[in-house]
């Protein structure tokens, strides 16, 4: 999730501590309402943040393991194999993100290869994972 929670908390604090009433009562009320919404969403993200990143990273590794069995490209195949065997060494959000970004970049690289040279079933498998990733990252506004 970008921006990350620490940025949102810090910038919200700055905004609230600043002259938020300068634009008039209606504007201030709107700003406070939005900040309040981001506080609520941040609380939800605090609860699920590590969980969804671990799940996403593991789902991507499982996909790469499957693709390594069908992709014959000499450059891509070892990357997929290595990524499939990688692990999250910590549950810190920043480190999970770091691993996640590496995996997501590799996903795009693998997807381009499959689109150009691969099998349709592999592409469909990738889209199944992408749908799962997108579903997991959805932000619910309600309770």
């Amino acid at each position, binding site marked *: 999730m970008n921006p990350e929670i620490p940025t949102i908390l810090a910038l919200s604090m700055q905004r609230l501590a600043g002259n938020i009433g300068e634009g008039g009562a209606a504007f201030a009320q709107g700003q406070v309402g*939005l900040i309040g919404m981001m506080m609520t969403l941040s609380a939800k993200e605090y609860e699920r943040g590590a969980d969804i990143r671990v799940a996403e990273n593991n789902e991507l590794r499982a996909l790469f393991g499957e693709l390594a069995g069908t992709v014959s490209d000499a450059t891509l195949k070892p990357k997929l194999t290595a990524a499939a065997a990688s692990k999250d060494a910590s549950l810190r959000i920043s480190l999970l993100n770091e691993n996640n970004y590496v995996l997501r970049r590799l996903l795009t690289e693998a997807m381009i290869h499959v*689109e150009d040279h691969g099998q349709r079933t592999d592409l469909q498998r990738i889209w199944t994972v992408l749908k799962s*990733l997108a579903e997991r990252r959805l*932000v619910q506004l309600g309770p």
Partner: protein
Amino acid sequence: MNELSQRLQKYLRGKLAAPDLTVSGLARIPGGASRETYRFRAHSGGRERGLILRRDPPASLIETERSTEYRAYEAFHGLGLPVPAPVALELDPAPLDRPFFIMEEIENCQAGSIMSPDPFGSYRETVGRQFFTVMGQIASADPRDVGLGDFEGETDIHDVAAHEVARWEKVVDEDEREPQPIVRAAIRWLKRNLPSPAQKISVVHGDYRTGNFLYDDAGTIRAILDWEMAHLGDPLEDLGWAIDPLWSGGNMEMPGGMLPRAEALRLWEKASGLKADPKALSWWEIFASLKGAAIWISAAREYAEGRNTDPINAFSGWYTLAFHNHILAQRLGAVA
């Protein structure tokens, strides 16, 4: 605020040649991170009128030509469409620190909220019929006839779709803060599956949707707002954007939370004289979600890097980006 009010008063006295003019009640309106919007009252010659000031923010969410929005208001107000009357455009930052323009305030109206499950209540059909008809009327106008023939945008009907994809890919390239595999896949798919040539080149509003127009207590649309992304292009771009599920709480069959899809498209076709070709429209719908994702990626960057810390930008980086990623994955996953 008082200082801004004084400077605005001084400016308007000179601009409108009204030495007795006074400004009162200047207050910022919530919503919209791409321009600072204020309402105020101007009194002169015994007459009082409500006006709106739209000023560039210190950093803009979407970089647009500053005169674009004002010229669009001029053109379509002149055509008799529900668009506020423009009053003054000032590109010199000296009077109010940043470029700005002023237009009439459309009073006693409301905007539908995209957060509401039923944004228009009993006015749903009345508002919906006007919404899709006015969009068709915009599409039917010849850009040269309304003085916008030199607007930004591609004018070759064969290249317009590719031009728009390239435009938003550039935004993603510049503002992406984390890898976006779904957005990147969408860009590749759009490039590989370009639609049939545009039926014509029209003025595209660029952000024609629920939340960007005002209607009154009789359910009459009084103002189409926020023309800052207006450009020349394929009129199906506006249609695809307006029926994006983000503006209807995810409801694909009730675009904008107003009318059944088939009825909405029929009204647009009738008013525009154009065809909402299903295959081409499907491409523009996927493009709409890509364009949305690019805007939200840009908003998240502006916020995270401290250039525009309006909390709406943080919300865009979370809720709306995740929404459009989800829509893109659903739609493209179905055709893969």
